[in-house]
């Protein structure tokens, strides 16, 4: 019994797992070891192929991880008696320079120790014709192994980071939709919030030299402003009985227009580098800060919706507003709460976006309301209100993120991506309907 209840509430998790499994299989591709492990492989390959005293060129890119590989390879090769002619760190043209130099001095070259990336440089493709004096050096790269691109921890964190903004806003949207309403203004609020935060920092907090306090103040102003917009929408809906669709559609236009106006149609980017902490930093167990924030908010919202009176009231209002009113629920207050929460969270989403892109612009968040609503609905919340689960929304958001990411990893071009995403959203909801019948 308990199991079937869980299935009914979070059945979408199987769709998510299935998608993950699917993309793991199709993105399975060659990966190359890095650092010391890679160096060991390359060194032993060179020793076994060229014997005692080979002349070797080491070529790596100027990426951080490659430095360890280069240092370790050089050390071990020298220890084994090989002669490292040069170590190139940088771009193909640096490698060419080194080759030209070696070529000019007439020294032969036996091997070129490369990473997977530098081994593919075309500068090493026609050595025999380009640099005849070098002899016939062979490019040695670490042996690759198979592992899905999708399952790389780097990619999984990427997915979580990519969906964080939408998932955060979807919390508020879930509440609004459970009360039987809708909030179309959240996408524009992302733009408004990013612009207000960026502009506040630029104009009132000393721009690029802003202090942490100044940045926080800017973010707070932006979030509170969006909360106020939410409160305004809530008032219109509860006091004046204007349908939520119309109110929030109007606010969508107002916010978008205001964002363009406040930003003067440009991108405001005069913000300190440290501002990207929220959107790009990863301080807690290697998890991106935006993801930590998202998880904390979901836990909070879950407790609110399932353990607290206010949460029960939100469901009650959406299930049957009249019945809720008769049983003493302050229906208007509950609805106000939902719209204010949606506004505040959209404002927060805008701040995360501003941090992620280190700028504010009226173009940000365009059409995000639809993505947010899709996440909520795919997560099993009913558009007619009264039903839905907070963690269901998180799963819905991840389903969308996984599909988008997976398609980017599997070379599916943009038009096809739209078609697939549309069909998968429809399919997911259909699946839910069939299951509940």
């Amino acid at each position, binding site marked *: 019994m308990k199991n079937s209840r869980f299935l009914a509430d979070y059945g979408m998790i199987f*769709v998510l797992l*299935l998608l993950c499994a*699917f993309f793991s299989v*199709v993105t*399975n*591709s*060659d990966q190359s070891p890095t650092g010391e492990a890679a160096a060991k492989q390359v060194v032993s390959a060179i020793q076994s192929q060229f014997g005692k005293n080979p002349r070797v060129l080491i070529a790596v*890119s100027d*990426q*951080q991880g*490659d430095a360890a590989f280069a240092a370790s390879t050089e050390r071990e090769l020298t220890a084994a008696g090989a002669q490292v002619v040069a170590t190139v760190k940088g771009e*193909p*043209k640096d*490698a*060419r320079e080194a*080759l030209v130099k070696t070529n000019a001095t007439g020294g032969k070259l036996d091997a070129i120790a490369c990473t*997977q*990336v530098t081994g*593919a*440089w*075309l*500068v090493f*493709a026609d050595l025999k014709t380009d640099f005849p004096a070098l002899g016939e050096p062979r490019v040695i790269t670490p042996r690759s192994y198979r592992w899905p*691109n999708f399952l*790389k921890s*780097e*990619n999984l964190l*990427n997915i979580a980071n*990519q969906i964080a*903004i939408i998932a955060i806003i979807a919390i508020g949207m879930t509440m609004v939709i459970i009360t039987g309403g809708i909030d179309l203004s959240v996408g524009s609020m992302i733009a408004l919030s990013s612009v207000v935060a960026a502009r506040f920092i630029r104009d009132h907090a000393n721009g690029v030299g802003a202090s942490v306090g100044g940045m926080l103040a800017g973010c707070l102003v932006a979030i509170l402003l969006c909360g106020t917009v939410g409160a305004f929408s809530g008032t219109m809906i509860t006091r004046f009985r204007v349908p939520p669709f119309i109110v929030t559609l109007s606010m969508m236009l107002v916010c978008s227009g205001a964002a363009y106006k406040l930003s003067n*149609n440009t*991108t405001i*980017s005069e913000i300190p580098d440290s501002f990207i902490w929220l959107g*790009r930093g990863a301080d807690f167990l290697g998890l991106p800060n935006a993801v930590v924030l998202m998880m904390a908010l979901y836990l909070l919202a879950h407790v609110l919706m399932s353990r607290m009176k206010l949460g029960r009231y939100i469901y009650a209002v959406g299930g049957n507003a009249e019945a809720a009113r008769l049983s003493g629920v302050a229906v208007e207050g509950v609805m106000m709460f939902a719209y204010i929460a949606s506004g505040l969270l959209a404002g927060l989403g805008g701040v995360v976006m501003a941090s*992620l*892109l*280190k*700028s504010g*612009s009226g*173009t*940000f*968040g*365009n*059409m995000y309301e639809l993505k947010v609503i899709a996440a909520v609905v795919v997560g099993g919340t009913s558009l007619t209100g009264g039903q839905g689960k907070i963690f269901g929304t998180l799963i819905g958001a991840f389903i969308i993120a996984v599909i*988008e*990411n997976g398609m*980017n*990893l*599997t*070379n*599916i*071009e*943009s*038009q*096809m991506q739209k078609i697939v995403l549309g*069909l998968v959203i429809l*399919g997911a909801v259909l*699946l839910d309907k*069939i*299951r509940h019948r």
Partner: protein
Amino acid sequence: MKKYILALVTSALAVLSGCDKPATSTTDPTSPQTKAKGTIGVSLLTLDNPFFKVIGDNITAEGKKRGYETIVVSGDKDVAKQGNQIKDFIVKKVSAIVLSPCDSKAIIPVIQEANAAGIPVFTVDIPCNEPGVKIVTQIATDNYGGGKEGAQAMIEALGEAGGKIAVLHFKQAESCQLRVKGFTEVINAHNAAGKGKIEIVTELESGGAKDMGYKAAEDALQAHSDLRGIFAINDPAALGARAALEKAGKTQVVIVGFDGQPEGKQAIKEGKIYADPIQFPDKMGVQIVDAIVRHSKGETLPPQMLIPTSLYKKADALKDPELK
């Protein structure tokens, strides 16, 4: 019930794996294509505009010729989405990233991430001239030169009499600013020479789109009933202006457009637009792949490569085999 669900899911996955065919077959180590030099990740401003579609298609075609796989995606003018696409390219360890930034400032941190991952970045059509990013080379149309060509066409069309002209601008785009700059400079130089004075009486915002171009041209005609010419910064704006002229019955007003999209070329053939400095998105696509190969071969590339426009008039349109 369960059967339904199973059927649904499996069919959905079948669709997905169907679209995935080209990718899986090339990553298969047993296939003869293991010689692929790597993947080029391309994120363009949009694919709704045929101009970018042509760039993308040519990168794919040329890439294939040179042994590269390509993935072309559309940023849909959403810089956050474009950022995600670039991040996915980085995870995929593509050998080069080509992009036309949706927002040249907001894209900075993303380009920096690609720089840190050691992946060379190239821009096409829209440059990113911000400090702190490393871009191998930027390929774009010589918009400034194109604007000059547009002015020459206008001077030629108005002849001895000269007259009043309007400019339909799209100020947000740096490329359009360059076009108008080149245009204005040549017109001013012409006026300084003395004969057939051409006066730019108004500069209106056209949004680079038909509807706004239509409105802007209508307003210009209201304000200046003796208008003799219109320079529009792209084909959609020019075609919108043409619609306004037709409605007002003033089809004698000369329009010079920009771009050379099929619809614009057709209008030139029909005499609706006098001339276009045309761009070569196909050349851009080919040249970007060439730049990627040259960079990988260790050549030093100039920071910017401009592709000149060429003036396209009715005589060219009549000879153009691509037009009906």
